[in-house]
């Protein structure tokens, strides 16, 4: 797996939070490991999440009040900390989704004619 990791893209700064929120919206309450796995799977294994960077990001979202956490048990009865979206988090997700779409749309328009010329 180590050699394969070289081809994968690292998660861009700032987008991790959006991915976490989206994952929680899609999956419901989930623990840290589950969130990381889910992000990798959704990206079609193109992204590599450094699991270590995930936890400070989760803490930041929790401090900002977008997610909340509590201890629970996994399917095979292992104790784990579960994160879930708050109302503020849902709102924030909607907002960020819109902004992201706008940004990509603008960028797409910029890049399209450039490709023709080159």
């Amino acid at each position, binding site marked *: 797996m180590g050699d394969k990791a070289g081809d994968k893209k690292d998660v861009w700064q700032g987008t991790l939070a959006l991915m976490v929120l989206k994952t929680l919206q899609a999956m419901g309450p989930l623990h840290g490991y589950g969130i990381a796995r889910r992000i990798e799977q959704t990206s079609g294994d193109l992204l590599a999440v450094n699991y270590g960077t995930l*936890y400070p990001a989760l803490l930041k979202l929790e401090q900002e*009040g977008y997610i909340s956490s509590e201890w629970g048990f996994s399917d095979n009865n292992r104790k784990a*900390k579960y994160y879930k979206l708050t109302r503020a988090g849902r709102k924030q997700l909607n907002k960020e989704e819109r902004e992201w779409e706008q940004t990509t749309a603008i960028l797409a328009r910029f890049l399209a004619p450039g490709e023709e010329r080159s």
Partner: protein
Amino acid sequence: MRRLRAWFSRLGGLFGKQRHDRELAAEMESHLQLHIEDNLRAGMSPAQARREAIMKLGGVEQTKENYRERRGLPLLEVFFQDLRFGVRMLRKNPGVTAIVVLTLALGVGANTAIFGLVNGLLLQRLPVPAAEQIAALVIQSGDSSLGALGFSYPQFVEFREQTAPICEVFGSATAWRLNFTAEGHSDTLTMGGVSSNYFSALEVKPALGRLVLPGEGEHPGEPAILVLSYSFWQRRFGGDPQVIGKQARVGGKPATIVGVMEKEFRGQFTVFEMDAYAPLSTVFDQSSVSNFWNSRDTHLMLALGRLKPGITLAQAQSRFDVISRRLAAQYPVTDKDLSVRVMDERLSRPIPYANNAFIVFSGLFLILGALVLLLACTNIANILMARASVRQREMAIRAALGGARYRLVRQMLTETLLTALLGGIAGVTLGAGLNRLASSTHLSNIPVRLGFGFDWRVFVYALAAVVFTAVSAGLSPALRATRADVNTVLHQGGRADAGGRARHKVRGDLMTAQVAGSLTLLIVAGLFVRSLRAVERMDIGFDPNQLLNITLDPSLNNYTELQTNDFYRSLETKVRALPGIQSVSLAASVPMGSTLGSQSVYIEGRRVPSGQRAPGAFFNSVDAAYFETLRVNVLLGRAFTEADGETSPSVAIVNETMAEHFWPGENPIGKRFSLTSDDGPFVEIVGVARDGKYRILAEDPQPYFYVPLSQHFTAQRTLQIRSAMPPESLAPIVQHEIQALDANDPIEEIQTMKESLGGTLGYFIFRLGASLAAAMGLLGLLLAIVGVYGVVSYAATQRTQELGIRMALGASPRQILALLLKQGAQLVAAGLLFGLAGAWALTHAMSHMLVGVSPSDPLTYLSLAALLSFITLLACWIPARRAIRVDPMVALRYE
């Protein structure tokens, strides 16, 4: 909002660290287990599953650290760490801490005290609603030879009427030291005679009763009323609310107390506190019609204006310019070249006169204060340098253990800042104490108020001084201590000082700077003190010692001219009969006093061209004994005699300057001039008196003349008594005699001539300047002594081993002493040179504040430089001598 919430959450994260750490560890552990289980399901061996999971998670400790940084506020946490460590270090070295705190307390204390003064005098607005609308109106007139410094009442009224759409002009004429009698005893007070709209324009409220009402008191003859200031009410009546309606006599005139001013408002001048206020008609009665109410030549009103909302100073200025030009055209003789400057009220302090040197004065003392602070800084830097070299080993080891340099510097700066803050707190306390002391000190009997102005600005100033000190004094030692190469330091076998030469140079520079700063302060102080001495020794033309002045006005009791003359005659006779009296006389005014007459002078045979004004001169009406009582020498001709009466020819005595000015090279005796017109009536000069000072001490020689009281009646006169006994003890005796003659007590004021000269027109400003500057100079000297002693004694300790070797090799103690002293002397000499240059620059910038002494007075420069070099060399010699007393064997084994 989200940010704020996160910030609070992080602030909370500072607490309960261990619980949070345990929880994170549990989360990591569960993450690993979940991952391993997944991997096992995917078919890995247990060892491989574990290894892969751990690799993917990355460094657990690193994750934890990242997490911790996000959880709390690392900046704050580190700060608290540094603070805790700093407190420990300070407590470990209480001696060093105490010296730094004390040094800084002196520096900051001196600065807050001075800044507090400047703040109160120049920066704080008047304590009235919307004070930013208040502007000062400074009148300037083409003819300033007569000292035209305020508005005349007719001018005041014209400006008030014609600027009404944009500005409400109000003003007051101050009566200094009036006699006040109520409930059977009397004292003196300072009273503002205010225009009727004064209080309504200022928007101040009474604490009790009422104030002067709009429309009240601008016609002579209205009932006399009085409003007391809050502090006078407290002081004199113990805050008794029954005071309203009480009868009192002020300046000998009966008046009814109608109100008490609110506590905050202490008068329109920041420096002078008013004791009471009265309408203009109470201060200037029917007898003043020609010399106050209708005269355009009596400039007694100081005016302010409240600008209407939205009106700028510039807009108001152009309006005033238009009116000034109109008045100048309308009254070409009296209002020639009239102009009014509309300026920020704060810039016109203490009194809205043109060419106010107050700001320069304040600036100079702020500079002196900054110099003291710089001296304190260099002292502290010195101490920290010494500490830094001791701690170099500690720093090197910490650097070796992975401490980033910026962290080490930051930690040392935190320590310095902590100490500086302690010093700052002590300093502000000290400054507040000095301020209170200043406010409780009554300088020479005039109502000067110096202690005030302690508000947020002072604290911001003190804080800025503290931070400046901490950074400027702490940064360089901190950088030095942390620069050292670990290897070098650790290899030196414990010897603290590495790279000594550069450090010695810096410490030497600091010592030079200290000597230079201290010398600058000393020379400024020396010049101020010499200036005061010069002023005090200055020939004022009369002998002010052993003189008592009592100003009276019997016309207040409806005396006729004849009765007034009789009253004075019998008073003089009675006082002459008292024991110990040498001479008694009467005069209309007192030199450097609050009233001074001026007159146009028409020289016989020289017509004044039409459209021009006759030259003016100050004058005094005196009786025959005046020249003897004040010891004014009559150089030529004769003094007045009892024979110069109402029916005899009109005579005058001129001073030397007047004689020289109008009759250069001629014998003035027998020459004639008129006070009314080119065509007489004339007075004949019978004598020439010595020059003196008449209006202010710093004035140039002025033309001045005397006329006999018997030929120029005034009701208000000052009885001047020269006696063998202290004039203060004479006062109650004479007062008793006066009351025996007239129970209504027509005394306006009583003070000794010395007190009178201590007033604002006299010695006051010179004494204030000299005592402030002297305090700064002594403080600077003290700091320099401590600094030089510290540097030399530290250097000697550092070189103990070297000196031991020298002595072991045969150097005599005298040679060693010479070596140490020579180095000290070089630094001191360099400092003296810089100090002389600095003092020269500073004193030339303030040259107009010095009277009777040149800003480059060689005696002051040389004697103070000699004094400072003697003291600093002594401060070098003591530690040097201690160094050579050390036994060479002990010295060699040192450390």
